[in-house]
């Protein structure tokens, strides 16, 4: 009978809800949005920039990019980006001469400060570029890093 089935479903739903309330069943944690395939898998710098919303970024001294001038090991190049621009929501880092220029992007929410440190592989000597999104606009700073030993197998 339909009635029986309905009652059964109701009962089951209630039981599951109760487990949620009791914290016995944890909802599956949702990871950060979707990986921007068009931007990350682009081999072309211009394309990677525009796919990540960074095209036409204005040079700004409020984007503070710290990177070594010379990297002895291209496999581990420490990069720090800090934004002094109010309402910064995102920092993206590009290694312009790498096969895939977009290396990483970071979205800041709640109490996060717009500053991030990450270590990147440089295939060869390259310009590293940070792009900051703030108030719907893009700002950028860049620095040249001379690599004396390769990071991607020579």
């Amino acid at each position, binding site marked *: 009978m339909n009635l029986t089935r309905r009652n059964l479903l109701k009962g089951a739903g209630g039981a599951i809800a109760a487990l949620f309330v009791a914290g016995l069943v944890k909802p599956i944690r949702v990871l950060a949005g979707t990986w921007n395939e068009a931007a990350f898998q682009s081999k072309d710098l211009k394309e990677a920039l525009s796919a990540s919303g960074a095209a036409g970024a204005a040079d700004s001294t409020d984007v503070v990019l710290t990177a070594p001038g010379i990297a002895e090991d291209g496999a581990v190049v420490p990069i720090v980006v800090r934004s002094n621009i109010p309402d910064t929501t995102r920092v993206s880092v590009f*290694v312009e001469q790498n096969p895939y220029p977009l290396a990483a992007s970071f979205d800041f929410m709640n109490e*996060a*400060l717009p500053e991030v440190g990450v270590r990147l592989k440089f295939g060869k000597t390259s310009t590293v570029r940070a792009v900051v999104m703030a108030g719907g606009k893009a700002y950028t700073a860049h620095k040249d890093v001379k690599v004396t030993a390769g990071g991607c197998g020579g």
Partner: protein
Amino acid sequence: MPYPMRIRAQLHGDVTAITAIISHPMETGLKKDGDKVVPAHFIRMLTVDVGGKRVIESHLNMAVSTNPVLNFKVKGAKVGDKVEINWEDNLGEKGFGESVVSVPE
């Protein structure tokens, strides 16, 4: 598959400095081992929650170094607040690590 993670979260004044060190090969898929291409295997998404609130959502590419070391800063956290980091790689593998905010000794 186990991927150990170490997290340090230290309060300096009002700012908590978070450092995460994650064991992961971060293979680019561009490297060759003899004649064979080593398949790409890298973390693509990583989140940081402090005191139950999401503070960082990051998307990574294969250019991030092997065994990633990441630094973040958060305001307003208190000693004892939980710091949770989750990641997922391009093969669908997931990793998790947690720690609590402490004061430097």
